[in-house]
């Protein structure tokens, strides 16, 4: 890698124009197309979007888990000043599990069924640290203790199937944080869990984030979690980030029609006339055949507010609308705000 003059980065994590493409027999799959965002240590960014929007691949690309032999990764992912994209396999491997760690959606299948959890935890310690067996074991027990597993010195001898789903996710969190990473990617960490457990797990993640001052990338489609946990939000649709900004901007001053639709489809307790949800009409696009122009245009009900067929022909850029608030839309700022007022107004919610 010949980056001669790494410009000083403001943020700890800086994702810049990240694209991931898979050539397949059915055609070129654009899983991630020009994603850009950034966060600092101790901060949380939530990447939200429907399934297939490219958020999981983004997460995996940041971890360097996208196989370079089968995929085409371009752009930059700066982690603490180092670009992940273009690193050798070994350099990447050394960062994984130590500098950055990941928690997955399904704790049932994310632990190896044949190995005791103790072995799986100590393995994570040993791969990055030269420590004795005993030290590794102590560290594992300590982490299990931290994530709230009762009598960890006993449970460490158990197999994954002997734990409940929530407990397994705790084990996964322990495993992710065992080497005190500065970046934690949580890919739908609560989706597979019972509602009652979801809150506990999120709480645990946030608590540990405080303790380790970790930067967290939270992948989710659950806006409820986003509201509680995130500092910043990036909304993804059709492999692109369509809107990003601090949490209040996205929740209270959204400007992209897709974000509006997303917010409208979330049931809220304070929603008085919530007799029916307001789903976005149509289906998400296929990553093989992304629509030309604005990826959202086939489903956008406001595209007639844009002159001509700009929405269908020209790809809008992700542009700042406020400080730190970026939007990808051809509508004028006025139109966007007007549309947002109407949309949020129908939800019976006051604008900020």
């Amino acid at each position, binding site marked *: 890698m010949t980056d001669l003059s790494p410009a000083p980065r403001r943020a700890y994590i800086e994702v810049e124009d990240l694209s991931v493409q*898979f050539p*397949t*027999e*059915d055609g070129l*799959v654009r*899983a991630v197309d020009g994603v850009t965002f950034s966060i600092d240590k101790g901060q949380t960014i939530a990447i939200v979007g429907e*399934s*297939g929007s490219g958020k*999981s*691949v983004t997460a*995996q690309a940041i971890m360097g*888990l*996208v*196989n370079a032999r*089968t*995929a085409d990764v371009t752009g930059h992912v700066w982690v603490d000043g180092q670009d992940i994209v273009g690193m050798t396999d070994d350099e990447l491997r050394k960062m994984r599990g130590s500098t950055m760690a990941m928690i*997955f*959606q*399904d704790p049932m*299948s994310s632990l190896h069924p044949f190995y005791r959890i103790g072995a799986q935890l100590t393995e994570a310690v040993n791969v990055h640290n030269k420590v004795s067996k005993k030290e590794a074991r102590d560290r594992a027990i300590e982490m299990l203790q931290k994530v709230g597993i009762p009598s960890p010195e006993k449970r460490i001898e158990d197999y994954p199937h002997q734990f409940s789903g929530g407990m397994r996710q705790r084990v996964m969190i322990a495993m992710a944080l065992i080497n005190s990473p500065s970046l934690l990617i949580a890919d739908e960490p609560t989706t597979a869990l019972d509602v009652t457990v979801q809150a506990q797990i999120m709480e645990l993640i946030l608590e540990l984030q405080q303790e380790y001052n970790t930067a967290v990338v939270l992948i989710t489609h659950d806006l409820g979690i986003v509201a509680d946990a995130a500092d910043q939000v990036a909304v993804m649709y059709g492999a692109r980030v369509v809107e990003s900004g601090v949490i209040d901007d996205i929740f209270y001053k959204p400007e992209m029609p897709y974000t509006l639709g997303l917010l409208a489809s979330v049931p809220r307790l304070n929603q008085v006339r919530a007799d029916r949800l307001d789903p976005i009409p149509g*289906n*998400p*696009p*296929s*990553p*093989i055949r992304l629509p030309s122009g604005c990826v959202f245009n086939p489903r956008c009900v406001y595209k007639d507010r844009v002159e001509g067929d700009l929405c269908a022909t020209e790809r809008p850029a992700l542009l700042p609308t406020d400080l730190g608030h970026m939007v990808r839309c051809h509508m004028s700022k006025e139109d966007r705000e007007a549309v947002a007022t109407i949309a949020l107004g129908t939800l019976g919610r006051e604008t900020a």
Partner: protein
Amino acid sequence: MSTSVAPSALPVVPDEDEEITGRSLRQIVWSRLRRDKTAMVCLVILILLYLIAIFAPFITSMLGVDPYSFDGESISDSGGGPIGAWGGISSEHPLGVEWGTGRDILAQLLYGLRISLLIATTATILTTFLGTTLGIISGYAGGKTDAIIGRTMDLILAFPFLLIILALSGVLTQRLTQLGVPDGNPSRILYLIIVLSIFGWPYLARIVRGQVLSVREREFVEAAVAMGAGRPRILFKEILPNLWAPILVYATLTLPTYIGTEAALSFLGIGVLPPDTSFGGMLGNSVSYFSVVPSYLFIPGTVLVILVVTFNLVGDAVRDALDPRAGRV
């Protein structure tokens, strides 16, 4: 399996049935198959082979050969061996003649192809029928029925099937004749079809049963139950259509297996009656002579292998088209 780094596991394909609306799964599979060049070539070859088999009598008469006539001129009076190299290949007999009789090898091959395809195809259809029906019943009914069918399958799978087929052939062929099946080849062919199917269905039934177990919990089945649909209706109208992909894959891969098994059985002497011949029979005959006339071994052997390979390639392609994750990229 959830998302992973493997590209095929990306949310590419699963979205398809939503995305490409208006196209049935059948059309999608067909369009995938059409793009697979090997598969298309093989498919064409297969169709040709079936046509050749069906029209074998015309083809042989056009070529001026037939599998039954003896040609005493083409074999030596001392020992009965063919006169000329490579089993007596000549313009009259393009692939040579049989030792001891002078019958034409090409014609025998074409007629052998007929029998081979007849047995394998019919047995595959019967196996598929048995396996699907019993698999659905077993999976849907559960309980005792499931247990009985399950034990039966265990039992059948534990049997040394080649030995049983060999041992019972004479007797059961006679039984079939007594039941009114015409004597001779009809009984023998029917016997092979039946025993192949009897020993073949449990494999498919297991797959189908597993699928049924997962499908029957799905909403549309529950909906049908709630609407008071009768059991046969649920089984065959609601559940069966969801099973055709694994069934089709299994059937296409079973057919070549049966071709090989049928050949092995006729090699061991359980086959059609003379004067008819089959691949296995020709190979069995070759054993006595192939150190002197190797073409007796290689001609039918090669045709047999081509047949099986072609079927297997098509089977693979069908599977890839139906479930790209299981096969190649």
